């Protein structure tokens, strides 16, 4: 795990762009896998433009929590409201929320049978009924943003891990989401590729995107996060600004966790 990944100008925190509007609200969310209580009474409100880093030991429920936000996992109790839409069992609501929420996975999950450009245009063409030329123009803009426009014609299998993850970010952005979820986006990458992906994510933060990022990259958290959330055993144990969180952790579990990951 690399804690001190080199980011450009690491000391300066990316300017905050938080507004008062609450865009994600989790109220008493509970989830079980059979007997196993994986999310215990989660309460969380995320404001528009807010950047949240979520950390915690393996198996603490980080992935499960953010996957509930776009209904890749179903919660059994409590309410989840995204951009004013209540996530019930209504398929229309779920579709609406998924259109608004982008997600980047640890394993990239690019479509191997489509070229990089086709990966980016698939959803705009079929979900937004966008003309192909327009979708391609937008896709090229985002591929430039993630600094790989020259790879547009290649297939995912021909790219490095870092390049694939940047394509995955561009693919999500092509749907113009208002919220982006990241589930350990750099955990499957070799150290030298981590910073190229984190750079892109910092750039995205600078545009004022609402971001929820599960990561152990503490350098990224210090530089970008407005709030760090620590989860353990299905609970939100502690949340604070990065400064307070790293220098003055309150609970013993947080201290233990920090000492473990910083000891590397």
């Amino acid at each position, binding site marked *: 795990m690399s804690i001190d990944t080199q980011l450009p100008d690491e000391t300066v925190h990316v300017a905050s762009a938080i507004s008062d509007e609450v865009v994600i609200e989790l109220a008493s969310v509970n989830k079980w896998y059979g007997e196993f209580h994986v999310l215990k009474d989660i309460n969380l409100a995320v404001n528009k433009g807010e950047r949240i880093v979520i950390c915690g030991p393996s198996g603490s429920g980080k992935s499960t929590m953010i996957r509930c936000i*776009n*209904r*890749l996992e179903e919660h059994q109790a409590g309410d989840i409201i995204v951009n004013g839409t209540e996530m019930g069992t209504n398929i229309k609501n779920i*579709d609406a929320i*998924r*259109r608004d*929420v*982008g*997600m980047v*996975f640890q*394993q990239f*999950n*690019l*479509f*191997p*049978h489509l070229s990089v450009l086709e990966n980016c245009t*698939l*959803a705009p*063409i*079929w*979900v*937004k*009924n*966008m*003309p*192909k*030329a*327009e979708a391609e123009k937008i896709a090229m803009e985002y591929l430039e943003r993630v600094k790989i426009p020259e790879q547009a014609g*290649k*297939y995912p*299998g*021909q790219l490095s891990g870092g390049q694939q993850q940047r394509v*995955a970010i561009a*693919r*999500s952005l092509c*749907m113009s989401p208002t919220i982006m979820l990241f589930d350990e986006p750099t955990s499957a990458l070799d150290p030298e590729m981590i910073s190229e992906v984190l750079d892109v994510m910092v750039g995205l933060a600078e545009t004022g995107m609402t971001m929820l990022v599960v990561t152990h990259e503490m350098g990224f958290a210090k530089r970008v996060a407005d709030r760090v959330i620590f989860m353990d055993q299905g609970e939100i144990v502690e949340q604070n600004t990065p400064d307070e969180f790293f220098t003055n952790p309150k609970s013993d579990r947080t201290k233990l966790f920090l000492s473990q990951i910083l000891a590397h």
Partner: protein
Amino acid sequence: MAVVDKAGPRKGGRSFTEIVNDERYRSVFYQVIVAVAVIWAANYLITNTAENLQARGMSAGFEFLTSTAGFSIAWSIIDYEPGDTYFDVYLVGIANTLIISFFAIIATTLLGFVVGVMRLSKNFIICNLASGYVEVMRNVPLLLHILFWFTLSAALPRPKNSLGLGDMFFLNNRGLYVPAPIPGEGFGVVVIMVLIGIAAAFGVTVWATRRQMATGQRFPAFWVGVGLVVGLPLLAFAALGAPLTFDYPSLKGFNFTGGADVPRAFCALLFALVLYHTVYMAEAVRAGILSVSHGQTEASYSLGLKPSWTLRLVVIPQAMRAVVPPMISNWMNVVKNSSLAVAIGYPDLVAVFMQTSLNQSGHAIEIVGMVMLFYMTVSLTISAALNYYNKLVQIKER
């Protein structure tokens, strides 16, 4: 950049092992050995056979194909009389093999998809029903399947007590009797309309795709296409006063006359081939769908693609790569295994040509060669199509 020549010239001579272990010569070396062995074996077989034929005063050659076969064939889909030649027998055999393979392949493919998808079902009963089917069917040899259905079909009622369906279809211990279509005047127009409908549907699909790519607007091309393919011929059919009549089978004395008959052996063979080969088709479908990781579906959902679009745009295109190769080799096996027809007297190519014709004419080498040629042509055609498809859909890797 300096190119390092791994096997560059060195001082002194090179030993034999050194040359064989050199990657530049190694494959050439083995190819030469194999080529020499093959040529030697072929030469041995040919001269040996020629000597033996000469010693017994037998002639080799294909003149026998033009002489009269003189025996009758129980059932054929193309016209044949005992006065026809051995070459006609060859064609009858090919036609009979192809017709049973055709129906068996279509039924196998459809049923295989159903069983394969059923096996993946979360429903306990459906899933276990399909698993049970797969386990039972594949653990019984195909020949046993064929003999079982053939024996069972002997227990069907006699013609007098046939199982009938609406005075049109009759099943008895001689076979299945169905109405024979007799095209009337103007039926050709209906056939032409079918072709026009297919062409029009294809055109609409292309147009709709172009328009969607250009403007983003959708068009229900599939349903319009179905309407064209079904509607146009139906209109023509009605306008021309239904130019198609049927000759219905009817019981005359001890047997049926009129209509078309499908012999018991055909039905039993078809049943056995389909039930047996469906298993392999189903397994290919199941493996294909499972080969697409769950992450693909999740990525697609998270982009806002609905489950039906995800299936169509993400899962099926990837699954087909894994499904098609085993599916096509299964088709080849259906064609080849249909030759087990000899066991129950269905007059396929092997039965009429390699058995009866060979016994009568004695031209074993030519006949076996011709039968092999047929099966090889079919198999090679199918595998050429498969290779082409594979190349088309290959996932590009580094």
